[in-house]
């Protein structure tokens, strides 16, 4: 497959690995945070850590939009689904996320009409085809996904649909990064930047991280070679004492972002004063809500949600994993009480969650396997 296979070439990977190794000072630890859940997934899926020297440590960040949804919002969505005549539509990733009263899948087993969709446009089609149902789209995601939701609302407005709304849980990446940087127990030397968020917001917003906070920042693509090359670029900056924002993903990310997408978001939505992030607490200006002008498409205005705050289970350490202060296996319930089958926290449910990625792909001793398979 074009633009995929070429970026999975083993030989080029070996060359990058060699270059990375030469850029590492012996005995020095390099903490590189990969912010985006898609990166976490790729890193584990392709076994990228096998190409990195011991000193380079990849730290997982909060860029998994499913992972950061607080339990109370899941409960609100289930409450909506249980209302008369409602069809709740959601991305597949969310179906098993546990709220205070179980997941969407559990609610479905109890009789709620919850359907998986691949695109918000699919929800629109369901609304069109079922004029008797009130169709609600569970809108989640960082800026990668927000424009698609916004465009869908604009489409719904153009068609004059009266049975479609969104439950808006879109979040923004920069405030999350600021929260990470403000955290005292973090030791991050550089950032592997979110490639697809950057197609929308561009590369400028990350300047403050490189210039004011002195951490190199490389916007990275999602194929294994993209990630390795980004790591090499970060280490080169550190080696040369530079601290800049660089774009590795030039074939997709324009430096100035996608203006049309930003306009669509701005037309339909506005920032919320504050929003609760699982594990990170309340962050100001970090999430979006539907503007008054489009109130008829806003599930929060149509339904009077219980909006209960649900505390995470005491055993859950998702917050620390999302901030990068602990690794998945360091969570006291990792793999024991909390597994992909019986998840306690969101990090174990989403295919982009650090815990799920590690449990599903990385949960083996690389030492032993190297010995066993080199025979």
């Amino acid at each position, binding site marked *: 497959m074009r633009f995929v296979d070429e970026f999975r070439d083993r030989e080029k990977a070996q060359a990058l690995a060699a270059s990375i190794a030469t850029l590492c000072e012996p005995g020095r630890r390099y903490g590189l945070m990969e912010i985006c859940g898609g990166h976490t997934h790729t890193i584990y899926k392709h076994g990228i850590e096998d190409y990195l020297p011991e000193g380079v440590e990849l730290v997982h960040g909060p860029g998994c939009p499913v992972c950061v949804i607080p339990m109370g919002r899941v409960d609100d969505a289930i409450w909506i689904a249980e209302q008369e005549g409602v069809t709740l539509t959601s991305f597949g990733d969310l179906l098993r996320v546990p709220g205070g009263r179980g997941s969407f899948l559990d609610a479905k087993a109890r009789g709620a009409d919850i359907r998986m969709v691949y695109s918000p446009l699919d929800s629109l089609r369901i609304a069109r085809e079922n004029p008797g149902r009130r169709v609600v789209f569970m809108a989640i995601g960082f800026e990668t996904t927000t424009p698609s939701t916004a465009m869908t609302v604009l489409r719904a407005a153009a068609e004059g649909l009266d049975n479609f709304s969104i439950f808006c849980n879109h979040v923004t990446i920069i405030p999350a990064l600021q929260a990470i940087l403000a955290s005292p127990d973090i030791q991050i030397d550089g950032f592997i930047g979110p490639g697809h968020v950057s197609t929308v917001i561009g590369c400028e917003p990350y300047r403050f991280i490189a210039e004011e906070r002195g951490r190199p920042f490389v916007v990275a693509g999602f194929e294994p070679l993209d990630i390795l090359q980004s790591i090499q670029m970060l280490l080169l900056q550190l080696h040369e004492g530079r601290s800049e924002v660089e774009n590795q993903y030039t074939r997709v990310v324009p430096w100035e972002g996608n203006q049309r997408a930003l306009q669509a978001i701005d037309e339909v939505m506005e920032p919320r004063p504050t929003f609760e992030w699982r594990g990170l607490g309340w962050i100001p200006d970090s999430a979006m809500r539907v503007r008054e002008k489009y109130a008829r498409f806003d599930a929060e205005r149509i339904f009077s949600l219980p909006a209960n705050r649900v505390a995470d289970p005491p055993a859950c350490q998702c917050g620390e994993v999302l901030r990068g202060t602990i690794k998945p296996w360091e969570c006291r319930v990792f793999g024991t009480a909390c597994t*992909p*089958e019986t998840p306690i926290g969101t990090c174990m449910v989403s295919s982009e969650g650090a815990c799920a990625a590690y449990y*599903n792909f990385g949960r*083996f001793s690389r030492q032993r396997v190297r010995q066993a398979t080199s025979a």
Partner: protein
Amino acid sequence: MTERTEQDVLERIERIRRRPPRVTDELITLSHGSGGRATHTLIEAIFLDAFRNPLLEPLEDQAVFSVGSARLAFTTDTYVVSPLFFPGGDIGDLAVNGTVNDLAVSGARPLHLSAGFVLEEGFPVADLRRIVSSMAAAAERAGVQVVTGDTKVVQRGKADSCFINTAGIGVLERPVRLSVSGARPGDAVIVSGPIGDHGITIMLARGELGIESDLRSDTAPLTELVGLLLDAAPSTRFIRDATRGGVATICNELAQASGVAVILDEEAIPVRPEVRGAAEILGIDPLYVACEGRFVAVVGGDETEAAVAALRSHPEGASAAVIGRIGDDPPGLVLVKTEFGGMRIVDMLVGDPLPRIC
């Protein structure tokens, strides 16, 4: 207090995974039907627990036992696929081929099938005719006969159009002893053709995702291919057809039952470009996607070449390939060497990416 190391945590997790399964859910969810972890837990904790007997314990896809001097294989499967009609076949084809295949992979010659129907009030008779006609054609192609059956009708809304159960009996004429616990380090893992065709075809045929392709279900009887394999490789350890849960599920069952490591080579796994493309769009790994006319086999290292050559001599086995090998460490785990050169685990499926696939 000592610091836990990563190794300590991994070992603790393995101990917990080896514990007998318990079902804690109060309600059946779609995960229980996926063929993955939840299905296995259900089977072991509820069905095996209640029915426990030596013939059931191995939890193979069929039971093998002797009656007089004859060795018989006996199996059953229920078909709930939606939609009923799809490119490459229909529920009738699956109902015959699926059960024939469960018999064939034990080394048996499939003989007779039963067919039980649960029909929803309002289901068009013309559709029933079509399905039954497919079953007749499939039975003839597979060399079996439908010798007994049953029909029930339930009220509108109580069953989605048409569910079919088929049970099958076959006779083992070869002296083979195939078993999921028979894999040994040094053995090779073979797949009989490209994976994921059926599952992706069904997903696309539902029309909900707006993806079109020229893919067709791979539903087909495997009796001839199995015969060729066993002729060329008489000490084959194990064969299983890859249905729901896909190749990944079989490899996990194998790794756990045989106490071995299964190490796959991603580059060697045959996948059609359309399956790969659709799977990328949907975010699904083809290793977990159902097939309906493919098997996974474990053969001894010395018989591997002959086995693959024999399969490739048949039109249905043209893309047969060695996709991995059996190792001794880490036992119970399935690993894949990625295209890229790194390693990752292929775990038992959790959740259900593709409900009602077969």
